[in-house]
């Protein structure tokens, strides 16, 4: 009984609730798929939803907690995705398949994204607000065009790289892993819903453990009041870098999971639009609110696919729904009503306890 009370203590409540949401959703989806009560369309969306949730959790750390607008999260997903394609290619050539490949790919994808995130954070985090947003936007575009022109082949002699023009000749039995604008090809899909759910849970634990630590306090302090944070010896640039790099690494991990779900995909998949969509998921779910991010991401990834029957009107309706949700969720009257309801619930609970 005490354990449960502790899990729902004010400090841990949001962590417990978001983990419960993931676990319950996973259980329901597992039951549905094992009894074949799930549409093929929804089935195909499960892994991408998990990937986008992971990337959005990362972005929420950056935008929600650190308070810096980042328009390049899809760029980090891209780095994770194409890193994992290369690593999976090497593994497959050596006859290693399945879940171990996925695990190594996710780890390498997140490390690669974190590394590049750290490198660009040095010049980028000197900027603030709109300027930072523009630079991260440009970063996403640069990554996309770099990968659009990147050719990677693998044969018995090892990896071959080419840039802009594909002038490589591969030995017998070799194959292209990444072929420029054609993207990654011949990827053996290993991502599963279970792997996705585990990744989301790990991402949540990392995010919440970070928030509830000295680093998390420093990040919130630097956002709340820069001068006061410096006056008690907190380095603003260090804390912002930490949030940025953790956000990037979660983006990389998400990209790796996403990549190993498709046999082929192109770099243009991770364009400016995806970065903006990730930001929309975060803002709609509530800045700093992880449960909200999970729900809004799941809804907004699935919604446009569900609207396919509307054909050309699909994106129009999607946009209208989005505007409607934003208006409703920011309606002061509804907010007060919800607050009153919550207080009433709390009061009756306290009465029960007495």
């Amino acid at each position, binding site marked *: 009984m005490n354990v449960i009370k502790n899990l729902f203590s004010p400090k841990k409540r949001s962590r417990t609730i978001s983990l419960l949401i993931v676990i319950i959703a996973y259980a329901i989806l597992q039951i549905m798929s094992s009894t074949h009560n799930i549409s093929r369309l929804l089935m195909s969306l499960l892994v991408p939803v998990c990937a986008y949730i992971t990337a959005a959790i990362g972005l929420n750390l950056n935008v929600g907690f650190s308070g810096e607008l980042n328009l390049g999260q899809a760029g980090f997903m891209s780095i994770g995705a194409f890193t994992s394609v290369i690593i999976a290619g090497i593994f497959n050539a050596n006859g290693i398949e399945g879940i171990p490949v996925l695990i190594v790919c996710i780890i390498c994808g997140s490390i690669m994204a974190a590394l590049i995130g750290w490198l660009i954070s040095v010049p980028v985090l000197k900027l603030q607000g709109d300027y930072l947003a523009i630079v991260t936007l440009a970063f996403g575009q640069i990554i996309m065009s770099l990968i659009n022109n990147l050719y990677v082949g693998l044969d018995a002699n090892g990896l071959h790289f080419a840039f802009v023009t594909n002038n490589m000749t591969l030995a017998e039995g070799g194959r292209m892993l990444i072929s420029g604008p054609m993207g990654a090809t011949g990827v053996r899909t290993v991502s599963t819903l279970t792997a996705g759910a585990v990744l989301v849970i790990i991402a949540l634990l990392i995010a919440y453990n970070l928030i509830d630590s000295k680093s998390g306090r420093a990040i919130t302090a630097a956002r709340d*009041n820069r001068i006061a944070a410096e006056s008690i010896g907190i380095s603003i640039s260090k804390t912002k870098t930490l949030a940025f790099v953790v956000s990037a690494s979660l983006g990389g991990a998400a990209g790796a999971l996403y990549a190993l779900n498709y046999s082929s995909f192109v770099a243009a998949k991770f364009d400016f639009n995806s970065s903006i969509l990730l930001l929309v998921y975060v803002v709609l779910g509530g800045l700093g609110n992880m449960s909200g991010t999970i729900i809004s991401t799941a809804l907004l990834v699935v919604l446009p696919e569900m609207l396919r029957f509307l054909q050309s009107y699909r994106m129009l309706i999607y946009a209208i729904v989005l505007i409607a949700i934003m208006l409703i969720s920011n309606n002061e009257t509804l907010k007060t009503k919800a607050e009153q309801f919550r207080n009433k619930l709390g009061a009756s609970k306290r009465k029960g306890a007495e």
Partner: protein
Amino acid sequence: MAENRTPVLKVTDLGIDFGGLTAVNDLCMEVYPEEICGLIGPNGAGKTTVFNMLTKVYQPSRGTIELCGQSTEKMSTIDVNRAGIARTFQNIRLFMNMSVLDNVKTGFHNDISYSFIESVLRLPRFAKQEKEADQKALELLKIFDLDSKADLIAGNLPYGEQRRLEIARALATNPKLLLLDEPAAGMNPQETEDLMKTIRFVRDHFKIAVLLIEHDMKLVMGICERITVLNFGMMLAQGTPEEIQSDPEVVKAYLGE
């Protein structure tokens, strides 16, 4: 007297210009260990500017600041805090969205040594140091009679309690010198009375020096051992409360001729 010891703070010929305006000029003062000093003067005299120079929010144009014999010339705000100066602000700067307890715990930032990896993996050192931080923060809050409000959001505290919390947060950084910028502003006489007791207790308990800016003359004359008076950025007088009160220049600056 105290002058035989090394001062915690030694300011020599300190000055700063903003464009063509000289805000502070030729300021010399010393604060000795375990001393409570006051910095007073009419509005706009440059008192807060002095605090901002001491904490390197502003870079002085002239003069030197020495902290325990060490020059702070090349230090940033962060370095100055690590070297031993902690401050509060005239317009309260708490982390309003954080709990009272977390505000103080944030002050322990450089004291806590577990790494990012240790906190994400929740290794034993994390749990141990967090627990210690919790205890130390509660002890500090107790001094300011805020321990019962540890879980409240800082922004929801009444004004006087926010001021006290800010002092607690500054003390969490384990300073040698505490700068208080109008600690009694907005407090009623009873609260001011309690605050005076608390400041004295803090000085005795933590064995630190205190430099405070204040308009409440009852507080200044009641607890300060030495007082520096600023007027139009220039030092007008320096001395014990009795000397200051009988100084004709000071009386002129405050009341006019």
